[in-house]
């Protein structure tokens, strides 16, 4: 994330600088920005180049016309690397006056000065172009690939431009060195400079960088490090003390350079290395330190080799560390995200090593169940202690079966003891990790608290039953009538039989007929009672194929008396529909609910208009649609969307549960329910039920 943050301002300023169309909301302000940015680049390059040239001249040791370290070229390369390609001409244009200013002070002839400018610019352009070709975006030294790309590109630029430069020197007859000597000296000097200064420029902490927003403690550490590095390097390379001549002492700055790379990344490494490089060159140039052993030109070579091998190593180290840190951050972030998800779901996740039985918890662990972290079981045996004794064996069996079998996942449900001693209903989902031989090595288990879900399922069932009981209350008259009818027929038949017997006539045929009728009536009464008992008892969904006609007729018979009392005419119409698959009692309940609603809706109409029709038809191949159509006032359009919501009601004493229960019952059977207004007034409620699979007995699995 931090990396992205750092690149965004760069891109934005680049976009301004290039004046891209999308950003050109205000042409005036855009062009002003563009000029300002160009000016800033120009001034920085001019100052950098000039100061670099002064530094390079200061580090030039006679009699060679080439500096040990020639920074201007490196500064030019660094500048080209950090600005967009379109700004390169500004960089080159700004460097020219600085070059002239610096070189002409040294009394160099103008042609030679100009030739050097050409070779310097060539070097920087080759290096920058190669880097850009490999890495189109602005380069950061935070990956090994980038660092190596930079090292190769910069070296190539120097290598090629040196042929040109040496030729220019020979042409201008400057100095006394031969072509190859100039070539060699310039090559080493410029490579050293590129390695020393470009990283500083490229990694210099810019806007939003971590170093800019560093905390005081870190700033203090940086200052201590800088002071120590400066002190040690100055002591070893520039103190002139006799002891400093010991060659092994050149390693003394190393711990501090590593410290910088380790703690402050590529930027720290780059700056530290630049400090060391300048001090080493300065000290050695003045004949101090372990590298100042021979002629100045030979000393320069030692210094360059020392720096050329120290710098890249340090840069690579910092880049690798950076890569490592980034990967770790990403991993940590995804781990954190995982933990957050776990926290949000309140699920507990643990891993278990199968061989040792050890358990590791993730996220909140068992905090949701009231346990402190030190109470979370550390092995499977103590975990099992938390499982309800009655569930232990079942759980163990399910797990063992999953491990032994070829299965990859298992699911189980058990009761887990909370810290307060109560039990939570827990759903366990496990994944088995196997080694290449298929041997189970690890289990990853997710525990979900489903207590509430189960409770709400139970609540729903209780509500559904309450609604059935309400329906039964409304049906009392019908039920009494329906049961009473066969009962009274039975009584009369018994009376008649008795009278026949009293008459003393030959009556066996008649008596048999009467007994048959009594049996039929008794069965009829039992059938009605069975229907009602279904409504009254608490039950779970029980789907089976059944005949919709039969069910609708039974329901209409049941509500017949009630409808008559309310002055409602009931009619029904059936298409040729197949058997459906569902729960009879629930369908009956839904139908009763819809019929009662329809009768309520027609309560204030004149009696001849209170008509209610129940139809069944097969509109889709896989579904049967049952409609209840009334002639009432219909449903207000703004209510249509909410009519199946819980606690939504338009009735004065309604609870708003009937239709929501109806919907949950229909959906539990794989159907849908909807309400609409009839074009001619009134409303139609319709629900669908899945068609029973042909053969009748088998059921579509998804309807459960």
């Amino acid at each position: 994330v931090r990396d992205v943050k750092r690149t965004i301002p760069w891109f934005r300023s680049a976009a301004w600088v290039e004046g891209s169309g999308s950003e050109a909301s205000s042409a005036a302000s855009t062009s002003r920005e563009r000029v300002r940015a160009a000016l800033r680049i120009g001034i920085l390059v001019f100052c950098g180049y000039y100061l670099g040239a002064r530094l390079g001249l200061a580090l030039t040791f006679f009699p060679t016309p080439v500096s040990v370290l020639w920074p201007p070229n490196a500064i030019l390369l660094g500048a080209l690397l950090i600005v967009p390609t379109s700004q390169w001409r500004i960089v080159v244009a700004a460097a020219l006056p600085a070059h002239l200013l610096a070189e002409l002070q040294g009394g160099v002839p103008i042609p030679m000065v100009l030739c050097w400018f050409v070779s310097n610019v060539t070097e920087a352009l080759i290096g920058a172009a190669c880097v850009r070709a490999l890495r189109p975006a602005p380069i950061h030294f935070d990956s090994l690939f980038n660092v190596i790309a930079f090292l190769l590109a910069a070296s190539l630029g120097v290598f090629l431009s040196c042929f040109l430069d040496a030729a220019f020197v020979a042409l201008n007859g400057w100095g006394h060195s031969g072509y190859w000597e100039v070539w060699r000296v310039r090559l080493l000097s410029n490579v050293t400079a590129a390695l020393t200064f470009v990283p500083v420029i490229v990694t210099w902490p810019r806007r939003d960088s971590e170093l800019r927003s560093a905390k005081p403690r870190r700033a203090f550490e940086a200052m201590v490090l800088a002071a120590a590095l400066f002190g040690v390097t100055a002591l070893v390379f520039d103190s002139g003390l006799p002891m400093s001549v010991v060659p092994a002492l050149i390693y003394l700055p190393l711990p501090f350079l590593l410290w910088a790379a380790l703690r402050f990344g590529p930027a720290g490494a780059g700056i530290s290395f630049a400090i060391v490089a300048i001090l080493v060159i300065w000290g050695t140039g003045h004949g101090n330190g372990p590298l100042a052993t021979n002629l100045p030109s030979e000393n320069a070579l030692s210094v360059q080799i020392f720096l050329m091998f120290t710098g890249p190593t340090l840069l690579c180290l910092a880049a690798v560390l950076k890569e490592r840190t980034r990967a770790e951050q990403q991993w940590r972030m995804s781990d954190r995200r995982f933990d957050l998800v776990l926290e949000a779901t309140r699920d507990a996740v643990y891993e278990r090593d199968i061989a040792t039985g050890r358990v590791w918890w993730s996220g909140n662990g068992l905090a949701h169940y009231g346990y402190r972290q030190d109470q979370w079981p550390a092995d499977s045996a103590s975990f099992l202690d938390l499982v309800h004794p009655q569930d232990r064996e079942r759980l163990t069996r399910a797990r063992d079966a999953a491990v032994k079998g070829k299965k990859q996942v298992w699911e189980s449900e058990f009761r887990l003891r909370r810290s307060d001693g109560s039990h939570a209903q827990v759903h366990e989902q496990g994944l088995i990790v196997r080694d290449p031989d298929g041997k189970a090595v690890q289990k990853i288990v997710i525990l979900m608290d489903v207590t509430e879900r189960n409770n709400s399922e139970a609540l729903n069932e209780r509500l559904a039953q309450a609604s059935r009981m309400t329906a039964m209350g409304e049906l009392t008259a019908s039920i009494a009538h329906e049961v009473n009818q066969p009962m009274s027929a039975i009584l009369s038949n018994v009376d008649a039989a008795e009278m026949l017997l009293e008459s003393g006539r030959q009556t066996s045929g008649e008596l048999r007929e009467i007994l048959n009728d009594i049996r039929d009536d008794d069965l009829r009464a039992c059938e009605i009672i069975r229907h009602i008992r279904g409504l009254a008892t608490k039950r779970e969904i029980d789907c089976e194929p059944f005949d919709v006609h039969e069910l609708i007729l039974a329901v209409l018979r049941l509500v017949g008396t009630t409808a008559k009392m309310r002055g409602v005419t009931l009619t029904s119409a059936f298409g040729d529909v197949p058997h459906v698959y569902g729960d009879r009692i629930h369908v009956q309940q839904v139908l009763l609910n819809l019929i009662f609603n329809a009768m309520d809706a027609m309560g204030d109409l004149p009696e001849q208009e209170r008509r209610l029709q129940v139809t069944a038809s097969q509109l889709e191949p896989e579904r049967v649609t049952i409609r209840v159509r009334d002639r009432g006032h219909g449903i207000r359009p703004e209510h249509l969307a909410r009519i199946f919501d819980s606690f939504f009601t338009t009735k004065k004493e309604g609870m708003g549960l009937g239709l929501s229960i109806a919907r949950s019952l229909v959906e539990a059977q794989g159907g849908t329910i909807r309400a609409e207004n009839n074009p001619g007034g009134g409303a139609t409620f319709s629900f669908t039920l899945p068609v029973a699979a042909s053969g009748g007995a088998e059921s579509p699995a998804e309807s459960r």
Partner: protein
Amino acid sequence: MSIPLVHIVDDDGAARKALGRVLSGAGFETRSYASAAEFLIAERDEGPSCLVLDVGLPGMSGVELQSALATREEMPPIVFLTGRGDVVTSVRAMKAGAVDFLTKPVRRDALLAAVRVALERDVEQRARHEELRILRGRLDRLTVREREVFDRVIQGKLNKQIADELGTSVRTVKAHRAQVMSKMEVRSIADLVSAAAQLEVGSQAGEARHFLPPAAEPLQ
């Protein structure tokens, strides 16, 4: 005298059949109907009869059938049967002249007792109807002037008063009066007043008039 006939109207086939068995076992002739409409369009016999009627019929209910029959001047005594003790309905039915209001399931003794009462009432009713029919026939034989005299005689007016009111002589009134007595086949003024009371004419006590509107045809 023919066998008493009991009409059973009940939408429940089993109940109909069972009631029929009990009633025929007790020696009655029975006829069954599944709905009020079926009963209304059926042909009637002359003999004594009554109605065992289920209140909760589909379509036209038992009570509705009762009032429909009343407008047709058919007054077979009705024994109502009901599945539930609905006080309002039973009061209305009893006020409209029902013999009894029995709750299903109905015991044989209660049913037979009610049916017997109903049949007795039917016999009485038929006798009263017959008498009325005869009286009505006699009344119809009176001329307009005789009817005017009749109305005034039963109001207790003297011949003189009647003659004054009708603008005629006492002698003429006397002649008409003798004619009325003869046509109405009564021997005394007291008998004439009693016949008038039965016919519910000429007096102010005509609240039950709708049972026998003067213009209606006699009961068949």
